[in-house]
């Protein structure tokens, strides 16, 4: 009896305990990240007496001013929102077009060529996208449109290429999941292929396509280095799409190492990190809500 129990321990319970621990570890990591970032992020409100209202709605950011330091993050928040929405506006229609193409226009070309192409585009590291932006895109904008070249537009284009595969692959899955009956029923009613696609198939897949678009938006919002390299990092609201501006992730990458731990400036940066975290939760919430519909 004793030997049998021991065997069961080695052959079942030990393994089960280990993998359950791995599952719990994922939960613990998530909770720890929230606790640490939020705990550090609220210090600027509890210790450094910065008002939350000022941080969210004031455009004045002068943390190293000795007399009158200001900690308004509105420019960063606006920059992040504008650049990521711009990227989605460019990427989403193209991605949905690709998804339709892969499933209904030419599945062979889609499967053999387009899909691997998208997989490689996903694999290109973000610093390389940033580097390409600096070496190709920025000079083009500078020479043909004017200004310094480092601009909102450069950020939007780089980001749109980066999130294109994300949206395209989710949209493609969504469109593939629409039953073939829809197509045949539309054909039976005498519609052309394009009419069937736009009137029956894409509307049926809207919910899941939307999930892909929001995921793309979330990715664009959180992307740090590629955007920081091309957007110019000038502390201003962009007056046109070809003006340089600054984002939340950009200021975090550049300034966190320059500040002393515990100073109001440093605390304010941690609050920005907290805002970034909360916004990424917000995106998850939206995706969940879309999924429930």
């Amino acid at each position, binding site marked *: 009896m004793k030997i049998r129990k021991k065997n*069961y321990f080695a*052959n*079942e319970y030990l*393994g*089960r305990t280990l*993998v*359950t*621990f*791995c*599952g719990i570890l*994922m*939960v613990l*990591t*998530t909770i720890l*990240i929230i606790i640490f*970032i939020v705990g*550090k992020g609220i210090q600027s409100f509890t210790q450094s007496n910065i008002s939350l209202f000022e941080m969210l709605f004031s455009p004045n950011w002068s943390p190293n001013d000795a007399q009158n330091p200001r900690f308004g993050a509105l420019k960063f928040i606006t920059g992040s929102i504008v650049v990521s929405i711009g990227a989605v506006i460019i990427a989403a229609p*193209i991605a949905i*077009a*690709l998804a*339709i*193409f892969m499933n209904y*226009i*030419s599945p062979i070309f*889609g499967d053999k*060529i*387009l*899909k691997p*192409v998208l*997989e*490689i585009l*996903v*694999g*290109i*590291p*973000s*610093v*390389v996208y*940033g*580097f390409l932006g600096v*070496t*190709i895109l920025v000079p083009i904008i500078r020479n043909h449109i004017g200004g310094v070249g480092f601009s909102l537009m450069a950020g939007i284009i780089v980001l749109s*290429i980066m999130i294109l595969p994300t949206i395209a*692959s989710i949209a493609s899955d969504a469109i593939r999941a629409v039953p073939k009956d829809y197509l045949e029923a539309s054909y039976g009613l005498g*519609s*052309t*292929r*394009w009419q069937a696609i736009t009137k029956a198939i894409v509307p049926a897949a809207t919910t899941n396509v939307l999930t892909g678009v929001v*995921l793309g938006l979330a990715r664009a919002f*959180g*992307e*740090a*280095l590629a955007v920081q*390299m091309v957007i110019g990092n000038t502390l201003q609201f962009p007056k046109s799409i070809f003006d340089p501006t600054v984002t939340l992730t950009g200021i*975090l990458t550049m300034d*966190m*190492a320059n500040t002393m731990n515990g100073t109001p400036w440093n605390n304010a940066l941690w609050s920005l990190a907290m805002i*970034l*975290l909360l916004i990424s939760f917000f995106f*998850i919430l939206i995706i969940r809500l879309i999924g429930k519909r």
Partner: protein
Amino acid sequence: MNARSIDKLWTFILYIISSLIVLLLIYLLWEIISNGWGFWDPNFLFGRPSNTQAGGGIGPQLFNSFYILVLTLAISIPLGLGSGIYLAEYAKPGKFLSFVRLCIETLASLPSIVVGLFGLLVFVTMTGWGYSLIGGSLAITILNLPSLTRVSETALLDVPKNIKEGSFGLGATKWQTIVKISIPTAIPQLITGIILSAGRIFGEAAALIYTAGLTTPILNSVAPINSQMNPFNIFRPAETLAVHIWKLNSEGIVPDAPEIAAKSAAVLIVMVLLFNLLARLIANFIHRRYTGSKRKVKVKEIM
């Protein structure tokens, strides 16, 4: 315009868009490779970087990238496979499971800079390690775990039920079945997923800036293991190749910084393409060995 011409027109437009995306990738790859032409020169790949003069190499950065890759995989494969097994085989549907899934979803969508800052708080400051290889590896492990978990879970769920039932019928426990039957059957998918994630680890930079640091000490392989100069000391700061590209671009003072960045980008891209190719080849090869069929395994895209 009648419906049929509209249909023809849009079909044509979609062909154009799709071809343009393919051309875009070819153009980007061409730009990277042609700008970084000559990146295979051993003096560049294995040479020491210079802070002031032109002609420096990327030897330490390349080594750091591979070392962090190995460390990260060594930590994240067991953990990812473990939680994949848990989700696929042991977890019972209910409140706790949906909470675990919510956490994984949350982890997967965290911006990598936020994970890097968490690493700065915990692996750099709290532990007192300073910027270190191990801190960097742990940070990317957090980034990498959700996708590895998903890969393991889907791979295990794809194992045919009848094979597992055969194993139970022979008196094996669930755990024995997982280790002896399910995992070996799922190996092609697992390896594919792991290699694809290796490509992402290799190119990650945002999470490493504040965890592994922006500098590398002068390395000397005969230094004692606890010295900052020993290349294998996991508690030394380490700038990886991807971070190096970023640093050259933002604060490079070497006269040939753009050239080094271009060549480093080419090296990075070639590595990522190799990982991608390797994943496909291994998946197909092992699948043929296991099944004897010519059917190809699809490289599942993991985001």
